[in-house]
């Protein structure tokens, strides 16, 4: 698994405690994928990564970090 971490959980809470379901709908994926991302069990495609960043209105680097 690539060493890519993310700030999705923190960003959700920073954005008015956005639910996983709400983020999933905004990013066009399932809630299970958001859960897997938050747990570090899945690395998204570039497209989904951009969609998630877009859903939060931040840059890609603010959501995903390569360690």
């Amino acid at each position, binding site marked *: *698994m690539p060493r890519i971490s993310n700030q999705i959980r923190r960003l959700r809470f920073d954005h008015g405690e956005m639910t996983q379901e709400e983020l*999933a*709908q905004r990013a*066009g*994926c*399932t809630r*299970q*994928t958001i859960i*897997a991302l938050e*747990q*570090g*069990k*899945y690395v*998204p*495609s570039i*497209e*989904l990564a951009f969609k998630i960043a877009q859903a939060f209105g931040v840059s890609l680097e603010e959501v995903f970090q390569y360690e």
Partner: protein
Amino acid sequence: MAPLQKRAWWGLGVGLAFTIAFVLVFFLMGGIESFDTDSNFRLIINVLWIGGLVANLVIMELTLRKPGMVDERDRMIRDRASRAQWLATIFALAAWVAVLNEVYQETGLIPAVYLYVIFMSVLIVSTLAQCLGIAIGYWRANRNA
């Protein structure tokens, strides 16, 4: 549970029920010998395999068409399961070819009923392998940290 994962478990359940029904009907109605003579037997077998195909189509395709039900992670797991499905199908066909060839080598004639049996068994193996592959795929994806 992801929608695709739920469908895979449903597919496994329906697939196993279908397999048991097929085996029971086949042997209770007389097996290979009575297939040629009993038109009711042929009708039931035809209903079973067409029903199996329709059930598989509804469970694995039609109910997952709504947008947002299947995403890239689901598709990745489904694509990996397709490889297991393909391998299982090839192995099932190879087993049939080897067994039928051994059994009917001397007569040189294979009863036509085996066309149905081969098709149905491959359909069952393919469906079960796909559903099992998807279920295992989710299990592995959730386990990997």
